[in-house]
């Protein structure tokens, strides 16, 4: 049956495709819900900044041990957390706002990272760091991705209420609790964790796409928080699956293909989204009585 051949056979036949699918699903469960909060907090570009910020740490790990999971993850995590916590502290203790302090930190970090990468290795290695290798996930990477997804969902469950409060009315949270700063930094730490996990699979440049595109799309589809988070995760998973299938049959790189599918879903939501898409409100309906 051709449909079976097209949609299921690649995964039934090849273990690397099954691994890629499992990895993509883990990424899609954790990343897009974080993206929803980033968008609602008007920090949509934060993912991008942090994604670049983890480069020097990952590069240091790479310099020390070559292309291996442990050192690069630990390095990336350390660099990302330093930048996230540093910019959080700067934003709360100096006159600079969070966007400005984050921009400063990540630019320094990125320049440092590129310098370190250039110290050793060819451009092909750099391409690997930037674009990942979702088709070459080993056991250790899969376990890492699954652990990060679990940790992220648990973390979001704990942070959910104060994070919503901090986002809607940070002044109110500050007046009833001292946890605002902690919540902000814990949330950024989860973002860092996911980007470090994702860059193993689809690379730093595209990791952010998996987080933000489904989230932006979900915001256009619904105004309900719970539904938004569910739809974002579902779209991430759909993009992961469809991207892998298409990249398999067309012989195209899998990471960018996953993001392109997520981008396509976003464009559809942009046009048809019932909670604020382009066509929303174009068709005039009679106004209500009250």
């Amino acid at each position, binding site marked *: 049956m051709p449909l079976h051949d097209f949609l299921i056979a690649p995964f039934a036949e090849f273990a690397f495709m099954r691994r890629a699918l499992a990895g993509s699903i883990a990424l899609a469960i954790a990343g897009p819900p974080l993206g929803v909060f980033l968008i*609602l907090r008007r920090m949509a570009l934060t993912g991008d900044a942090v994604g670049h910020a983890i480069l020097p740490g990952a590069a240091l790990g790479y310099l020390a041990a070559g292309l291996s999971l442990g050192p690069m993850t630990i390095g990336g995590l350390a660099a990302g957390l330093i930048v996230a916590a540093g910019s959080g502290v700067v934003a709360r203790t100096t006159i600079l706002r969070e966007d400005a302090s984050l921009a400063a930190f990540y630019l320094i970090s990125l320049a440092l990272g590129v310098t370190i990468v250039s110290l050793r290795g060819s451009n092909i290695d750099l391409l690997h760091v930037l674009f990942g290798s979702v088709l070459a996930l080993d056991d250790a990477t899969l376990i890492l991705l699954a652990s990060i997804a679990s940790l992220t969902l648990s973390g979001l469950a704990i942070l959910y*209420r104060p994070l*919503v*409060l901090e986002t809607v*009315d*940070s*002044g*109110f949270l500050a007046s009833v609790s001292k946890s605002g700063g902690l919540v902000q930094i814990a949330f950024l730490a989860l973002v860092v964790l996911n980007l470090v996990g994702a860059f193993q699979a689809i690379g730093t440049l595209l990791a952010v796409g998996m987080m933000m595109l489904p989230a932006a799309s979900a915001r256009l589809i619904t105004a309900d*928080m719970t539904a938004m988070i569910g739809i974002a995760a579902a779209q991430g998973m759909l993009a992961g699956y469809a991207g892998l299938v298409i990249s398999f049959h067309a012989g195209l790189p899998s990471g960018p293909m996953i993001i392109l599918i997520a981008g396509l879903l976003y464009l559809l939501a942009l046009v048809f989204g019932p909670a604020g898409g382009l066509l929303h409100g174009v068709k005039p309906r009679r106004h209500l009585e009250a």
Partner: protein
Amino acid sequence: MDIAIRFSDLTLGYDRHPAVHHLEGEVESGALLAVCGPNGAGKSTLLKGIAGTLAPLAGSIALPRVKSRDIAYLPQAADIDKSFPIDVFDVVAMGLWNRCGLFGGISRSQTAKIRAAIAAVGLEGFEARAIATLSGGQLQRMLFARLLVQDAAIILLDEPFTAIDSKTVADLISVVSAWHADHRTVLAVLHDLDLVREYFPQTLLLAREEIAKGKTDAVLTPENLFKARSMIEAFDRQAQACARAA
């Protein structure tokens, strides 16, 4: 006489420049106190200090009877993100933070309390409305409902009736009067002196330092108001460290 708030040689300010200077005095428990004074007199700053969001430059604020979390504070321009997809009920429910915390569910009696608070401020039927669709007056009513749910012993209101129509002011004043009848301590920063004379038994007239404090009629005299108005907004870049004895 129970003391709710005590100021001891309190100086509050920004960047070492004082906005409230060497304030002494007490607020009785159960007082309904208006805080009046010209712009720049330090009224908002004083409320921030009591709410604990601004640390004193010198001196102290003591709350002998309540924990600092038992204060409900409505800032001047509440920096609510109106674009966030959340409805009126959920915002009012935020008032339960100190009781529910991270995971605590909202019990049936608490749900009833939230609905009662929404009804008390005249927003019945608006529970499921997104906050993005509220008018300025409705938003202020919602924030009062959240204060009601907070159920605090001390309530701080910073210019709660600015840009609010008279009907809404009347409704919200009745909420304030109910708090007073309930023996809660209420401090409100207000500019409408007629409103103060009508509803607030006590007034603190502030112009960086205390001009007068006590019964409203005795405080809001032409002489005192003139004194407050002639206060210079003394911000001196080269100001020396204040030498007044603590």
